């Protein structure tokens, strides 16, 4: 380590003195091979930056050091970037979860417009020189790409993955309840959400009294239906009126009311277990078969594998009621005060190139946002033994392509939180649906006007 540093320092000094001579002599051209060492700092969370790919890039570019700082406490990711932008500092690359894209699209000044950057070129990875964000946009799912575009059209983030959302279900439990187990037949059970709820009731009717007492149900948490339906629409809480922030329509948008009412219906039908996702009860329930279905984004597959390894082969994936779905996803951007923009852009374009996104999908299950892969046999024919050899690539690709772009605004997360709490109150039988909705509106009124 120590020796390596000294050697590196010496090489650098040598190159520096050589180039000084070159300038003095005016004949010598600096050697192109010995690139200066550069450190790219990355702020990220979870497993957005994959270790094996980092090692791969290190082999391609020994002069590049990637310094990765992970923070997993949810809002911190956004807070750090606000601080960085106000104080005109920041990392070279920042990972932003899509729930923040509604916020950041109002502040393009905090990010480098990636349309102005040009790749140096990576012949071994098939990346030509001189490519701007405009040139690579065609590789990605259009609505997903839009989530990284600011109100003024500048590109502030390039998608790493798209959440996708399909139904993960337990074939063994379906069989026990007398339901079909084949994924095509299962998808036919629920062409729409009402049919999904009816299927859930059918499942619950077959449960033994002991199971019912133990809190067994059809879906892990009926509240998750809300977000699924919201993403199937064309607008959420904002309408694009051409302004910087958009216009708030949460109180009038019929999609909100539809998603709310359907979720309440599912809750009242008792098809959910009321276990919160990512709680210990959820992890245990996954193993015990407390619920037979989960609305699962692609990235959740890895979570299920890790938490319930003994259920391998018992799961399968079927299409969502009412078409496709999405939940989550991340994009990488370069803050405007980054120190090594060129090196960062070169890494970013390599890391998010379709070939690399495919590797991440195969090893970790993050579903590629690079839509050029959706017809690639490597993705289409990819099956997962844990999920009963379901062609997960094909299923998720079909789902995410049915979605439309949705305009997102600054208060997206606050509104989601307030409505989620409202659904929680109904599920916990603390309030009636009408009262709870009234409180959601008064809570949101405070969020917007206070």
């Amino acid at each position, binding site marked *: 380590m120590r020796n390596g540093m000294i050697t590196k320092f010496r090489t650098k000094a040598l190159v520096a003195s050589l180039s000084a001579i070159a300038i003095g002599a005016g004949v010598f051209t600096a050697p192109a091979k010995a690139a200066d060492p550069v450190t790219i700092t990355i702020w990220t969370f979870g497993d957005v930056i994959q270790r094996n790919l980092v090692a791969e890039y290190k082999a391609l570019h020994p002069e590049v050091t990637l310094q990765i700082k992970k923070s997993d406490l949810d809002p911190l990711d956004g807070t750090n970037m*606000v601080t960085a*932008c*106000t104080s005109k500092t920041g990392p070279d690359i920042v990972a932003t979860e899509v729930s923040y894209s509604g916020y950041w699209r109002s502040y393009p000044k905090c990010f480098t417009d990636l349309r102005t950057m040009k790749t140096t070129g990576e012949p071994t990875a098939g990346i030509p020189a001189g490519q701007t964000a405009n040139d690579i946009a065609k590789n990605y799912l259009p609505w997903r790409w839009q989530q990284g575009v600011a109100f003024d059209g500048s590109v502030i983030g390039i998608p790493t993955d798209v959440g996708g959302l399909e139904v993960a279900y337990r074939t063994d439990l379906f069989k026990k309840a007398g339901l079909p187990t084949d994924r095509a037949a299962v998808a036919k059970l629920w062409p729409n959400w009402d049919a999904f709820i009816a299927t859930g009731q059918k499942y619950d009717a077959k449960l033994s009294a002991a199971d019912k007492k133990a809190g067994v149900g059809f879906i892990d948490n009926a509240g998750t239906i809300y977000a699924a339906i919201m993403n199937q629409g064309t607008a959420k809480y904002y309408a694009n009126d051409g302004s910087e922030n958009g216009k708030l329509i949460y109180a009038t948008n019929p999609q909100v009311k539809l998603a709310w009412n359907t979720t309440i219906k599912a809750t009242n039908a008792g098809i959910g277990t009321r276990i919160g996702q990512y*709680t*210990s009860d959820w992890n245990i329930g996954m193993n015990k078969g407390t619920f037979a279905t989960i609305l699962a984004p692609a990235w959740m597959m890895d979570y299920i594998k890790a938490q319930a390894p003994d259920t391998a082969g018992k799961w399968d994936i079927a299409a969502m009621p009412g078409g496709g779905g999405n939940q989550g996803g991340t994009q990488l951007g370069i803050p405007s005060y980054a120190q090594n923009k060129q090196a960062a852009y070169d890494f970013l374009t390599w890391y998010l190139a379709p070939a690399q996104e495919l590797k991440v999908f195969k090893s970790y299950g993050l579903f590629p946002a690079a839509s050029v892969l959706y017809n690639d046999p490597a993705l289409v024919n990819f099956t997962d033994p844990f999920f009963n050899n379901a062609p997960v690539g094909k299923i998720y690709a079909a789902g995410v392509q049915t979605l439309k772009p949705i305009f997102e605004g600054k208060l997206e997360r606050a509104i989601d*939180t307030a409505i*989620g709490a409202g659904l929680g109150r109904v599920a916990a039988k*603390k309030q009636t649906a009408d009262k709870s909705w009234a409180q959601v509106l008064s809570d949101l009124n405070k969020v917007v006007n*206070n």
Partner: protein
Amino acid sequence: MMSQIAERERKKALSPWKSKSTNSSSSKAKKAVQFPGVKSLNGKWGYLYVAPFVAMFAIFGLAPVVYSVYISFFHWDPLGTSTFTGFRNFNNLLHDSDLWLALRNTFSIWALSTFPQMFMAIGLANVLRNTRLRGKSFFRTILLVPNITSVIAITIVFSQLFGRDFGIINDILGWAGFGHHIDFIEGVIPSHIQIATMITWRWIGYNTLIFLASMLAIPNELFESSSVDGATKWQQFRYVTLPQLKNTITFVLIVGTIGGLQVFAEPQQLAADGGSSKQFLTLTLFLYNQAFVNNKYGYAAAIGIFITFIVLIISAVNFVITRKISNDGTR
């Protein structure tokens, strides 16, 4: 008899120090302290000595406070344009039912965590004081382990213990004949109990050590003479130990109150929004969510100022109580 002699000896030993300190402080009142050899700079050295602290405090303590007061009068956007709104934030805040809810939750969690904890800590300290106890140092050391454990880790473990469907506490309640499962998240008091338990577990060892230290400072002669008078263990505890702990109890209460007003990580980890009906939204979590979820920095600053006023009121109450207790003590 023995004890009286010892007491006299102690007073004698203390007296020179006492008289010296009164002398120097009275001379300081009249005239600056003389430093031999640096006469010309007399009086100015003091400022130099406190300068590092004052500088640090000004940068990291005072400046943010002043800045918070400033931004509380704005609709503040750190990245965009901010508009001056006068007292609007404060007016909205006092009409915000969430504020009073957060105040209620904060005090409920504070009461549930402070008082049971204090009784247990005094009890534990009394056990550890026992001179015949084996492995005393070991027990005294492990008491501090919860205190250096990460709050996040504590929350993860406790939320598993308190799980509604598969939590061990509900299992035990079930065996004890308690029919239905308690929801330690959705219920108001159950969720407060869960959070208070985490706080108690984390701080009980620390407080035990403080009580232990002050118990060990109680002159042994008091116990000796009381046992000569025929006092039982319980009577010794009740009439010797407890009265001597008065000041320590006040100290622990004050520290506990300060900590109680800052409860944040535990509820935040249970549910970031403080629960579906905000049943465990605390004051600091309310502030944090307004600033970093709703992007209302000015409003959050106003909440901060409100919390400051609450602290001032509590400090005043504490001050009065402390003075009353210490007066009682000298009587």
